[in-house]
């Protein structure tokens, strides 16, 4: 089937989407130097800044979370492709401050390469920055080496807790420690039903039979571990929640954050049905679901499926989750 999307020239996709996004939310964000989405009102220079990078095509991620209490800037690449290190160092120069910068990178080859290279340049220029790598995908196994585990939608609640810590005036080391605590207590599992089309090449990024689903699929069609016949919402939810709870080693009395992140073509209706089943299962273990998100945060074009995310929260993290934020796609008052 030929690709059916409302686009213009494939080469201009990222530029046009950033133009539209930043003008739609012109009261909150601005576009700087073509590829850097920054807060409209800059944060106090005495506070730690939060920076991230990543490819486009996953809207509203990642730039949807630039705003007060979350990211200070996001550097955007091309569709599913990381931005180059020169743009990242440019953003670092814009955010440079004595308080320092926390730089959040999702574990994908191109992102990590650009991130490492920008870190090397930052060091040469005397920019104070610490990098944190998210790698919470448990599809290859919760114990498999970090380089095999991708960074999925978990970066978004991580921006929230780290952003709130930065806003509270904590030092770079303190913000880093909080972010790392969250990072080490989170896990994501994705399930795919229907492929997405790469909006530049027009090709489907993977194939699945009509009656199949795949647990563990990455956000660019990377193969998962469990291709199976379609299961019901409840069966799927319980299967995924079981693995996630094991991965974060949550036990009776623990508090967790539960997120259902739609991949693009899965309806809000389905997401609520899945959420309900996952929550029931988790609460049945005596674990409290104390914070929830259900919706589209990090999408993969029109892919069918969702990511289920859990994170263990202590009182400090829970408080940060509820702290005020004012990003286009995450607001807490």
């Amino acid at each position, binding site marked *: 089937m030929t690709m059916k999307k409302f686009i213009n020239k494939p080469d201009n996709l990222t530029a046009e989407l950033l133009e539209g996004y930043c003008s739609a939310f012109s009261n909150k964000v601005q576009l700087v130097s073509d590829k850097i989405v920054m807060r409209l009102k800059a944060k106090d220079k005495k506070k730690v800044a939060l920076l991230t990078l990543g490819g486009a095509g996953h809207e509203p991620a990642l730039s949807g979370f630039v705003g007060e209490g979350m990211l200070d800037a996001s550097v955007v690449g091309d569709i599913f492709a990381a931005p180059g290190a020169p743009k990242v160092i440019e953003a670092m120069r814009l955010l440079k401050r004595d308080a320092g910068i926390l730089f959040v990178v999702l574990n994908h080859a*191109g992102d990590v390469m650009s991130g490492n290279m920008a870190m090397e340049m930052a060091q040469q220029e005397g920019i104070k920055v610490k990098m944190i790598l998210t790698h919470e995908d448990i599809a290859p196994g919760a114990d498999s080496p970090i380089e095999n585990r991708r960074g999925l939608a978990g970066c978004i609640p991580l921006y929230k807790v780290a952003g709130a810590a930065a806003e509270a005036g904590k030092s770079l080391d303190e913000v880093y420690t909080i972010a790392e605590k969250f990072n080490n207590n989170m896990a994501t599992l994705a399930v795919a039903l229907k492929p997405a089309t790469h909006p530049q*090449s027009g090709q489907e990024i993977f194939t699945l039979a009509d009656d199949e689903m795949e647990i563990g699929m990455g956000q660019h069609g990377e193969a998962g571990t469990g291709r199976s016949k379609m299961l019901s919402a409840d069966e799927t939810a319980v299967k995924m929640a079981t693995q996630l709870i094991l991965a974060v080693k949550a036990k009776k009395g623990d508090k967790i954050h539960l997120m259902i992140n739609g991949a693009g073509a899965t309806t809000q209706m389905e997401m609520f049905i899945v959420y309900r089943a996952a929550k029931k299962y988790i609460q049945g273990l005596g674990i409290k679901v104390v914070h929830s998100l259900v919706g589209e945060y990090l999408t993969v074009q029109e892919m069918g499926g969702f990511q289920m995310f859990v994170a263990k929260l202590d009182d400090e993290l829970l408080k940060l989750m509820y702290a005020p934020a004012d990003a286009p796609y995450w607001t807490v008052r």
Partner: protein
Amino acid sequence: MSDNVDYDGVVRMLKTAAEKIKANRDYLSKLDSATGDGDHGTAVFKVAEAIIGVIAKDNSKNLKKLLKDIGWAAMSTDAGSTSPLYGSFFMGMSEAIADNALLDCKTFVSMMEAGVAKLRKNTKAEIGGKTMIDTLVPAMAALRAAADSGKNLGQTLADGADAAAKGAESTKEMKATFGRAKNIGERSIGHVDPGATSMSFLFIGMKEGYQNG
């Protein structure tokens, strides 16, 4: 032809290589659609355009500066992992040479080795992983062996290009363990890796550019 190569010589080599990659855009994307997401031709096309763009604007006649600028421009292309890999390759070459360098065969090979060393800092891929490393390792070994045995630069580049082409072809029977192609595991066998192929075009193009100089 003298056996030393200067700014103009390297420019000719890189231009020919970049044109070769540009001309193969569709072929490389087609290779990629068998194992990846079908955009490698576009990605490496952007890098080739960056090389040509920097050369067109540069009037420094300083090879060290030119290579650094090419590295920076390649890194800025937002072409996924292709940008940092090619970018660091050129940056590493620049770091290894002096301002206004005139290169003999051995210093040319040393410069290339420094580029590859910097590139490899970005990836854990090893030989056999069905990546550009399968082109680079044999090509560099051939360059080094030819230079050490006293061959002139033309013969050395020819040996490197032959080894690069064979290295790229060797990926056909490999199972991908790196990059996006690893997603399809066993199904990647039987397809030549697009990243290994574009890298072989770089070596072949450099040889052709030198010969036609």
